[in-house]
């Protein structure tokens, strides 16, 4: 039991697996693609653009972990903006003053 608890604690404090160049580039490609879709829907978000630029800068500086984190953030933001556009395609009518 004691060994299991120690092992568990070690797992908790163990740093996340370091990202590779391939990881960061793959996530960034997904984020860029999602942001292109957000653009097509006319709904790019400012923080998505900021995160994309930060990811590209980190990638150029060979900081793979940072690039991976920023690209993941950009991807999450871009996906949410797409979701928002789809929701609002009809939901806006419910807000009309009448």
């Amino acid at each position: 039991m004691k060994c299991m608890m120690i092992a568990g604690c070690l797992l908790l404090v163990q740093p996340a697996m370091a990202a590779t160049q391939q990881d960061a580039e793959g996530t960034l490609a997904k984020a860029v693609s999602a942001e292109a879709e957000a653009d097509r829907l006319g709904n790019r978000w400012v923080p998505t653009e900021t995160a994309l630029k930060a990811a590209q800068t980190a990638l150029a500086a060979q900081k793979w972990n940072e690039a991976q984190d920023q690209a993941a953030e950009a991807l999450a933001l871009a996906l949410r903006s797409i979701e928002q556009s789809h929701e609002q395609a009809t939901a806006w009518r419910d807000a009309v003053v009448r």
Partner: protein
Amino acid sequence: MIVRLALIVLAPVLAVFAVAGATAATAPDTSDPLADQRAFQAYFTDKFPDVKKSDFANGPYAVNAGMRKQWEEIMAFPPYDFALDEGRTAFETPFANGRTYADCFPNGGIGIRQNYPYFDTKTAQVVTLDGAINACRTAHGEKPLPYSTGMMASITAFMSETSRDKPFNIVIPDDPKAKAAYEAGKQFFYTRRGQLNFSCASCHAGAAGARMRGDVLAPGLGILAAFPIYRSDWGSMGTIDRRFTTCSAQMRSVPLPPQAEAYRNLEYFLAYMSNGIPISGPGTRP
């Protein structure tokens, strides 16, 4: 990282609760601009029963006594006066070919601001006053002006001043494309966008008159009447395009280029909603 991503996902949900929306009921999928206009105007006159309808031309000053007092003192020396003088001079100065702005507009460009924007049935596009000014320039061999500030704001300040107290008189011609442009503007006004999940209506309908940090949110009715404006926050004059782009950025939405079709349609919708409200521009805002 997990906390940041959670915040990204939750922020729009929280924003929905933070800012009250306008009336929430399922709307019929029909287009009746006049019925929309009546409902829109009634919404604001009911919300602010002590405000005279024409006073909605004065934006937040119509609905907040403290701000109005400060504004009245500011107006002893209107900060847009320099732009008015510059605009008048530019308006009257001939182009290189000897023609002037007056040659491009009905009534020589005097007292016509209340009729803009209008729908041009030939091009099937909404034409704003700012767009017409640049069309005039290019037609006479001059370079177009930047849309957001500077000389464009000065010339529209002069033209607006010649229309003061004339009520908005926006026409939607009997043309399906005109109605489509109006509907697109209406959709833009009510659509939530950006990371904060706000629509134009979030601030300028549901929360009109409330405070957003240091600002009092202007009612949507009459919101374009005072443009162009000298805004203390900017420290300079700005056009409707400048206001639209800064509003977009404040919602954490990437702004569209000035005079984008979506912005022109939005201007068309908002101006039509304000029919009957007098032009008060140029104006000043905090």
